[in-house]
């Protein structure tokens, strides 16, 4: 009975804390400006199914894709066992699904075990890739400190989680063979799970009944405890992508990548300027909102999708590896743009929750996190957008910050200021008269 109560408390605290922290993230994301992504539902579901569920874009690099898929499949399938653990924990039963499902149960747990072994191997390779191999994208400046530790912690937690599964199933297997398991006896010799029927006797065959029950319980409690630890680690980690990848791909930008947004606030002003009948001194109509800032200086000037992107980013660095500016030694790293956005959003959100909605800490995403030098190194080539396995768009953040710099701060590289004034004066980025546009026709 006491264990049921402990379990129930663990369950409530585990899920409750996760819900609480997820709500904070949700409110942070909703700090962003509105953007309509409610159209084309069918295409959105399809995108999510292909990109998030099917991991289509991961398979551009087959080796990491296969390893990643092993982990992903194991994670998804293990949820079935987790349901059983929760039912058992709350009812005091043991392997409650087994008598109901029979042979299918054996198949299911075997499947989980095989995937767990594959996931174990994949996790080891990932750890080695991160720490032993010199893969540049894992060793860039934005990956020092917490991001590196974060990546390793997740992998280590996964290894521990898998160990607990085999402690639980392995010890229980030995107990079952000796007719001592709490699982309902179905008259068979063994559970017959694909891996633990061998691993169990090999590792725990020499233990006595009390020790076996202890190992089995450590595995069981350890497993569920790690699950809740992991769940509550997510909101503080890049690993949140395992959940956010789904909404993030659903709300993908479905337009052509070359189409940048036309700022409506600017359209209004330009139409007014070009309308000969407009009265430039007219008072704005009473219900009009104060004009919003042009472009983005801080996180609340970005759209909620940009902010969702930042929480979805798992810092894999494919964007940065593909970035022409980064490859040629410039400061710009699209991954850093996403990480900065998330870090600033966390900071801002915390400050606002503590000090009220209008709190201003005097800092901003642009300049305190992202420098002008990074902004202006972008060629807008869309390689980062193309590469991202979960359809994150670092380019639109860069563009919105350029807009703020130029339209609100008049901060622009000198040569570009020249280009701009040429377009203003003669309709071309160079100093040629518009009247000469057809001269080429008669030149030889």
């Amino acid at each position, binding site marked *: 009975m006491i264990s049921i109560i402990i379990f129930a408390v663990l369950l409530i605290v585990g899920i409750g804390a996760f819900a609480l922290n997820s709500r904070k993230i949700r409110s942070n994301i909703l700090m962003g400006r509105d953007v309509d992504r409610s159209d084309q539902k069918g295409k959105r579901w399809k995108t999510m199914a292909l990109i998030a569920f099917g991991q289509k874009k991961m398979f551009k690099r087959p080796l990491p894709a296969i390893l990643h898929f092993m982990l992903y499949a194991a994670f998804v399938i293990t949820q079935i066992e987790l349901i059983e653990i929760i039912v058992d924990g709350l009812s005091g039963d043991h392997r409650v699904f087994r008598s109901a499902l029979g042979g299918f149960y054996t198949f299911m747990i075997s499947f989980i075990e095989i995937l767990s072994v594959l996931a174990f191997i994949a996790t080891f390779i990932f750890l080695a890739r991160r720490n032993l191999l010199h893969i540049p994208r894992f060793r860039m400046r934005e990956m020092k400190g917490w991001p590196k530790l974060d990546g390793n912690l997740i992998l280590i937690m996964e290894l521990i989680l898998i160990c607990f599964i085999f402690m639980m199933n392995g010890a229980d297997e030995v107990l079952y063979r000796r007719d001592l398991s709490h699982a309902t006896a179905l008259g068979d010799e063994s559970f017959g799970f694909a891996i633990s029927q061998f691993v169990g006797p090999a590792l725990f065959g020499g233990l006595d009944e009390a020790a076996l029950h202890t190992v089995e319980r450590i595995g069981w409690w350890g497993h569920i405890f790690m699950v809740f630890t992991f769940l509550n680690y997510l909101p503080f980690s890049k690993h949140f992508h395992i959940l956010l990848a789904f909404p993030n791909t659903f709300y993908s930008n479905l337009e052509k990548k070359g189409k940048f947004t036309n700022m409506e606030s600017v359209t209004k002003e330009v139409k007014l300027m070009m309308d000969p009948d407009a009265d430039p001194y007219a008072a704005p109509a009473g219900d009009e909102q104060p004009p919003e800032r042009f472009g983005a200086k801080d996180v609340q000037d970005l759209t909620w999708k940009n902010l969702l992107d930042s929480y979805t980013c798992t810092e894999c660095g494919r964007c940065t590896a593909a970035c022409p500016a980064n490859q040629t030694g410039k400061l710009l790293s699209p991954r850093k743009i996403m990480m900065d956005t998330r870090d600033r959003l966390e900071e801002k959100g915390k400050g606002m929750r503590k000090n009220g909605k209008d709190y201003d800490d005097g800092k901003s995403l642009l300049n305190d996190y992202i420098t002008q030098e990074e902004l202006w190194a972008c060629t807008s080539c869309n390689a980062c957008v193309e590469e991202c396995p979960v359809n994150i768009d670092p380019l639109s953040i860069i563009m919105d910050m350029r807009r703020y710099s130029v339209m609100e701060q008049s901060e622009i590289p000198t040569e570009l200021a020249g280009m701009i004034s040429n377009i203003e004066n003669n309709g071309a*980025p160079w100093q040629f008269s518009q009247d000469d546009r057809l001269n080429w026709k008669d030149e030889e």
Partner: protein
Amino acid sequence: MSELMKVPTMAEMTANNEVPEVLFWVGCAGSFDDRAKKITKAIVKILNKCDVKFAVLGAEESCTGDPAKRAGNEFLFQMQAMMNIQVLNGYEVKKIVTGCPHCFNTLKNEYPELGGNYDVVHHTQLIQSLIEDGKLTMEGGDTFKGKKITFHDPCYLGRANDVYEAPRQMLQNLDAELAEMKRCKTKGLCCGAGGAQMFKEAEKGDKEVNVERTEDALEVEPDVVATGCPFCNTMMTDGIKNKEKEDSVQVMDVAELIASAADL
């Protein structure tokens, strides 16, 4: 020659009560850059050779606003867009072909919301359809037999608008060997000019983007680096010069290659 270099303006056509099938949007580079003007002429010759009834805006054309927008000046972009849309809608333009992927992208994707709705194609798409319709044959001109050609994907044609095949199909008519760079199509590396970089020095780094891209191209040991963008053309030409390969490797627009193969 002069027959092939007929370039009527919209104003002239309208005055003669004529309506062109398609407006040729030349673009700033195509109008003013000495290298790009040659590409413009190649496109004109192809259009005339295929009896495509086209016109240009001439002095009524102005920058689409692309570099202003990418440089963050949305005001100037929208001013340019609305002025151009007034002109285009005034002439009731339905279809546009551009000589530049940046103009193509802007006219096609960013003008509709501002009131400019046209059927916009890039010159590679139009020329490829002319070849498919049998209106243009590669006979009598320079032969590219035995030559190796590699195509550099302009970002604003490829990733930005998913046009990868039209330029490649065009090149297939040349009887040359097509070699892909290790980074091509969706993975193609930028030439370094996009996002208004064309008009400024690069930020501090350890290499120029165009040199990095030129190295990709030189890896396949091509005779010709083909592009579909006047800015890529400039960047790749500079890259080839940087590598001192200008004697053995040419940088050409696909339109130029087709025009020269068709003896125009």
